[in-house]
């Protein structure tokens, strides 16, 4: 068999690495364009287009490029391409992924195969940044020749070349015969987008696809029971949480937040919604990420104590409040269960489901009481989530959480080199956070991949997108 067909939920929006910052696009681009380095499961850098790399000083990195690498259009790969790609990412064209190249101060080619990158300030998660698909290397000639059509006809150094793309339906890639590394075992890779989750399972069962991403939990046992099929599960670098609007009465009182925590049976709710799959996190930092504090425990549901806490905080019952969420079904379902559970302590919840754009806008305006949101970590480091949603200056701190000490810790952790000291800092940070409960951690979703038995070496990555070049058939 020389065609691998997979069904994903979405199609890439663009195949130009710098246009979009989304999982589906990354999942496609990573087969066509390559970055200088990649990360292993522990988040350590491993060579890709760069054979060697080193950190010269806190803000300077040197990369020695692989020789003899060819682009799909036959051009040789040199340092100039790296310069061009990074400059292009930093230009206004790359505004959607601006946060990644932003840190880069300058790129210099020492010779055709050596690149030196200076960053603006010491930044520990820098390897992660360099491994992000937005900094994948593109071919200057191809970009300039194709113009508007480039995203439909990307050219890179990766194991696959672009063959056909029917937007929102399927992307067909073909093996690049002059690939520098191990060539894929099959010739054609078809990535289909099938948004209806039931249909993905059906397509897998009927044999139309070899791998179906994101099998709905309802179908997991069905696929498992099918003797031709297999289920592979994986966690992602993500956490879903419910935040309180800590700038608003009565949620500014930690006791009220704790009361809510006690009034809820988060674990039970998660069980119901995900049919027993996944986990209830105990930390804001996903357990797949380093320095995640797994020592905390989820308290048992205690309605009496919750009531007592509410009384202590002087909350007048019944308290009316809203839980906001976007239209992602598990979140809506959770909101509905919480609605029922909170009723028991006298909090009357209105679940408000908003369409994504309106949701973000609404959170920004800050009329919410509680909201359910997820955070997916793109650079494998706890800093991202901390700076993003816990730091008072964080762009997504919709909880409006503000704690000077915590802010100081986050600022410090960002620049600290990796090591036990940094670990200790993040452990402390998580502990402090757990005392204040600005966020209740709802679930770490276990994602399921339905795979035909004949498919080998499919290893889902916690990043949420997967490089399929290594997959082979029995």
């Amino acid at each position, binding site marked *: 068999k020389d065609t691998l067909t997979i069904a994903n939920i979405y*199609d890439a*929006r*663009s195949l*130009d690495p710098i*246009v*979009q*910052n*989304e999982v589906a696009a990354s999942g496609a681009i990573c087969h066509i364009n390559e970055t200088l380095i990649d990360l292993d499961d522990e988040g350590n850098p491993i060579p890709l287009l760069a054979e060697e790399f080193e950190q010269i000083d806190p803000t300077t990195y040197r990369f020695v490029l692989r020789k003899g690498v060819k682009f799909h259009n036959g051009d040789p790969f040199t340092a100039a391409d790296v310069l061009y790609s990074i400059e292009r990412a930093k230009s*206004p*064209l790359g*505004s*959607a992924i*601006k*946060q990644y190249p*932003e840190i880069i101060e300058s790129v210099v080619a020492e010779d055709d195969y050596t690149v030196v990158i200076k960053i603006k300030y010491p930044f520990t998660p820098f390897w992660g940044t360099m491994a992000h698909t937005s900094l994948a290397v593109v071919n200057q000639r191809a970009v300039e020749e194709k113009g*508007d*059509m480039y*995203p*439909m006809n990307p050219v890179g150094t990766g194991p696959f070349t672009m063959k056909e793309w*029917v*937007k*929102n*339906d*399927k992307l067909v890639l073909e093996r690049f015969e002059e690939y520098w590394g191990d060539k894929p075992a099959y010739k054609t890779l078809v990535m*289909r*987008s*099938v*948004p*209806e989750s*039931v*249909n993905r399972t*059906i*397509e897998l*069962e*009927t044999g*139309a696809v070899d791998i179906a991403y994101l099998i709905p939990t309802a179908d997991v046992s069905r696929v498992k029971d099918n003797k031709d099929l297999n289920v592979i599960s994986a966690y992602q670098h993500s956490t879903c949480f419910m935040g309180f609007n800590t700038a608003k009465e009565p949620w500014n009182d930690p006791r009220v937040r704790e009361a809510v925590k006690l009034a809820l049976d988060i674990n039970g709710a998660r069980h119901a919604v995900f049919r027993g799959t996944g986990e209830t996190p105990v930390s804001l930092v996903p357990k797949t990420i380093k320095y995640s504090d797994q020592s905390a425990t989820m308290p048992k549901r205690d309605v009496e104590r919750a009531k007592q806490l509410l009384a202590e905080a002087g909350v007048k019952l019944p308290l009316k409040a809203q839980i906001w969420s976007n239209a992602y079904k598990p979140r809506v379902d959770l909101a509905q269960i919480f609605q029922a559970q909170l009723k028991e302590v006298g909090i009357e919840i209105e679940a408000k489901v908003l*369409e*994504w*754009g*309106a*949701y*973000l*806008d*609404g959170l*920004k305006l800050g009329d919410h009481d509680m909201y359910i949101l997820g*955070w997916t970590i*793109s650079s494998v480091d706890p800093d*991202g989530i901390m700076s*993003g949603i816990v730091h008072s200056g964080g*762009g*997504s701190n919709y909880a409006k959480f503000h704690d000077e000490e915590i802010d100081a810790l986050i600022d410090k952790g960002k620049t600290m080199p990796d090591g036990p000291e940094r670990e200790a800092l993040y452990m402390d940070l998580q502990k402090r956070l757990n005392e204040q409960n600005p966020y209740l951690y709802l679930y770490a979703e276990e994602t399921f991949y339905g795979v035909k038995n004949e498919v080998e070496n499919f290893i889902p990555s916690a990043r949420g997108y997967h490089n399929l070049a290594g997959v082979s058939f029995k």
Partner: protein
Amino acid sequence: MIKYIFKRIVSLIPVMLGVAFIVFTLLYLTPGDPARIVMGEQATEEALHEFREKEGLNDPFFVQFGNYVVKAVTKGDIGRSYMTRRPVFDEIMSAFPATLKLAVSCVIAAVLFGIPIGILSAIKQNSFFDNITRFLAIVGLSMPVFWQGLLLILLFSVKLRWFPSSGFDSWATLVLPTLTLACNPLAVITRMTRSSMLEVVRQDYIRTARSKGQIERIVIWRHALGNALIPIVTVVGLQFGTLLAGAVLTESIFSIPGVGRLMVEAIKMRDYPMVQGGVLFIAITFSLVNLLVDLLYAYVDPRIRAQYK
């Protein structure tokens, strides 16, 4: 005739301006910041601002609208999608073939079955066949397409495994969506054919044709259908126009990469240029189909032909 077509196309201009204005207003009133959605939750405030500046989102409403119209009229440029950074027109054109294919197959199915059934039903008025088709036509109108689609998938993809449940490359993938989507137009066309035929067969010229000793088959197909065609053409055109606007629900159930899904995505993603361009495109298509229908009238009916001169 040419003059008439020209006049009609010119008269589209104010309608299109109106459409653009309404869409602009709607989007303007819509909460949700495109910058934030496009660039993701983790984007910095500065980056967002830069994006808005670049896309002119900080300009006052009328300036935005004016710029858009001026650009569209002078350069034929209806902008680039925020999401893909490609010209909106290219994006629509990549989704349009699927929609067109689906619409055409639906209309063909509906016409091929609807008209004969409608005629049969009319000439056998109040017969068992007539009652059954009338009943089924209403049932066809009452089935929510999304439900019907699910049930069809359940039956034909899951249970029988005859047709794939999603995708859009072979004729087999076309079967279920067509089955789902053609139901409604089929019912409408059948009903319209029936009532229009009933109206026509009562006309005096049908009696005249019979009094000539003409055989019934020719009376029906030549004399009656020719005259009953006008309202039928109207509904066929209307249905086709509607289908060309994209069948949002069907497309999402069967994962068809069509215009409807593109538009819904664009609305959800606040991809303003995409929504504006898409709605304009759909409105123009719709109006052109209407024009086509009117021209067909002229073909079908010489009385109308005379008016177009």
